[in-house]
C-alpha cells in the first residue's frame, strides 16, 4: 500500500497558460527515499507543494486528479491537519525562520507549540532533533545570526521534530558545503530507515546516487523517468534532455567510447566507478 499516491495530477498556476504539472502518476511506499531531479522550471517545487498540500490550499489555480497521503485526499483535508502528516522544508533558509523566536531552541519548538505537544515531550524532541542534525551547540544562538548552511539545518530540524509520516524537501542543501551536504544526506537516509517516507527535490546527483532508493526525473511538468538510481542516472534520455549527470557516469561514458570501460552498465557512484575501472 502506497503512502503517497498521485493519480493523473495536472496543475496550472493562476494566470498561466501551460500547466506546471501534467498527468503525474506517482506511488511511493512507506519508508522509501525518492529523489526528484529535473532542470530549473521542470516542476520540482510545484510537485513538492502539491504533495505538501500547499497546492490547492495556499496557491490557487486549477488542480485535477487525486493527491492522497496515508489514505486522505488533500482537497478533503485542511492545511493545518495536512502538515501533521506531511512536513515541508524548502530552499531559502532565511525565509523559513519564523521570526517569532529569539533562540534556535525556541525556533525548533515553534511548530510543536502550535500543534500542542506537551512541554517535556517538546524539549525531548527538540534535543533529539538537534543531536541528529548536528546543531546541538547552536541552541542558544539567535536564528538570524547563523550562516546559510546552519539556517538550513535549523529549517530541516524544525520539520523533523514534528515527526511527519512523509518528509518533502525542496533543495534542502542548496547553501551547504560538501561536508554539510554529506551529513544532511546521512540524516535523511537515517529518517528513511526509521520508516519516514522522504521525497527530495535536489540537483546534487552524486549524493542522490549514493543515498536514494529511487529517482524520478521531471521535465516540463511530466515524469520522463522513474526507477532505481543506477537505471535513471545512466539513461541516455537524461543526457538528451539536459539534466546534470554524475561525473562518474560522464567519465565512464567517455571511457566506454574509447573502449576502456568494459562493463555494460555505467556507474553512478564512486564505488561503482572504481570497481568498474579496476576490472
Amino acid at each position, binding site marked *: 500500500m502506497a503512502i503517497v499516491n498521485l493519480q493523473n495530477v495536472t496543475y496550472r498556476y493562476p494566470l498561466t497558460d501551460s500547466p506546471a504539472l501534467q498527468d503525474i502518476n506517482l506511488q511511493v511506499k512507506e519508508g522509501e527515499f525518492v529523489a526528484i531531479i529535473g532542470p530549473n522550471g521542470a516542476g520540482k517545487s510545484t510537485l513538492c507543494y502539491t504533495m505538501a498540500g500547499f497546492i490547492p490550499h495556499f496557491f490557487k489555480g486549477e488542480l485535477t486528479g487525486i493527491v492522497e497521503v496515508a489514505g486522505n485526499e488533500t482537497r478533503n483535508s485542511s492545511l*493545518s491537519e495536512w502538515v*501533521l502528516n506531511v512536513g515541508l522544508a524548502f530552499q531559502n533558509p532565511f*525565509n523559513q525562520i*519564523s*521570526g517569532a523566536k529569539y533562540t534556535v531552541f*525556541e525556533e525548533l519548538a515553534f511548530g510543536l507549540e502550535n500543534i500542542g*505537544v506537551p*512541554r517535556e515531550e517538546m524539549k525531548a524532541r527538540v534535543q533529539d532533533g538537534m543531536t541528529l542534525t548536528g546543531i546541538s551547540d547552536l541552541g542558544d544562538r539567535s536564528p538570524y545570526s547563523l550562516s546559510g548552511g546552519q539556517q538550513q539545518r535549523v*529549517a530541516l530540524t524544525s520539520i523533523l521534530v*514534528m515527526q511527519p509520516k512523509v518528509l518533502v524537501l525542496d533543495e534542502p542543501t542548496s547553501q551547504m558545503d560538501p561536508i554539510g551536504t554529506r551529513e544532511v544526506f546521512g540524516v535523511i537516509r537515517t529518517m528513511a530507515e526509521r520508516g519516514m517516507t522522504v521525497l527530495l527535490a535536489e540537483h546534487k546527483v552524486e549524493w542522490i546516487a549514493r543515498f536514494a532508493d529511487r529517482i524520478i526525473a521531471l521535465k516540463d511538468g511530466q515524469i520522463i523517468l522513474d526507477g532505481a538510481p543506477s537505471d535513471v542516472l545512466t539513461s541516455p534520455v537524461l543526457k538528451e534532455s539536459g539534466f546534470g549527470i554524475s561525473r562518474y557516469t560522464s567519465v565512464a561514458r567517455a571511457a566506454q567510447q574509447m573502449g576502456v570501460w568494459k562493463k555494460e552498465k555505467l556507474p553512478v557512484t564512486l564505488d561503482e566507478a572504481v570497481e568498474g575501472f579496476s576490472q
Partner: protein
Amino acid sequence: MHERLSYYVKRDSALHRLNPLTKIILALSIILVSFFSPWYWTAPILLLLVVVPLSFLGRVSKEYFITALRLILPAAGFIFIMQALFQPVGETIIFKFWFLDVTQESLSFAFRIAMRITVMISAFTLFLMTTHPSELMSDLTRRGLPGQFAYVIISSLQILPQMQARAQTIIAAQRSRGLDTESSFLRRAGSLIPLVGPLVFGSLVEVEERAIAIEARGFTSTHVKTSLHEIPDTDVDRIIRWMLILLVILSLALRIWLS
C-alpha cells in the same frame, strides 16, 4: 548586532521573575496613578520612591539611568520648555521671551506634565527591560490574545533589523555599480528611489515564503497551543495585580471626590 533586538536586559531578579501581565499592570498603574492623583507632587514622588527603587529591584538601574539620560530627559525637557512657553495661564510673569510670557503658573503646569511624561516612559522602559518579548507574547496568547496578533507584533520587532540589513546590502550593490550616494542632499534623496523597488518587492516575495514556512509548522492548527517556557504566575502575582487595580481605583476616586 542581530543579537540585540529589544530593550530586554537578561538578568535574574525579582522583577524579571514576575508574570508579564503583572508587570504590564504595574507599569499601567504607575502611569494612571500619576495622572489621576489630585496631589501635585505625586509624579516626582512616584519616580523617586517607586520607579527608581524598582530599577534596583530589577537589577537594571544602570541601563535605566542611561536610557533616562539619553531618551527620557530630552523628551521631558522638550515638553517642559514647550509647555512653559506656550501655556497661556497665570498672571505672575517671571520673564518674557520675545512675545511669550513665562509665568509661575505655566512653569508649574509644565513641570507637572513633564514629570508625568517621565514617569510614563520610565515605567514602560522598566517593563520592557525586565520582560522578554516572547515570554510576554506566550503569556498573553495563553490568556486569549489571538496567535496571529502576537506573531505580527513579535515578528516585526525581529524583522525590522533584517530589513535594515537588506537595505544596506542593496545600497552597497548599487553603489558598486556607480550609484551616487555621497553628494548633495537632493541627489542622495533621488538615489534612494532605486532602493525602494528591490526592498519592497523583495519583502513581499519573502512574506509569501514565510507564510508557507510557518504554515508548514502548523501555525493555523486548531489544537490548543502549548508553550516551551513555563511562565510563572503565582499567588503573589495575583495579589499584586489586585492591589494595583485597587490603588488605581482609589486614586481615581480621590480625584473625583476632591474636585
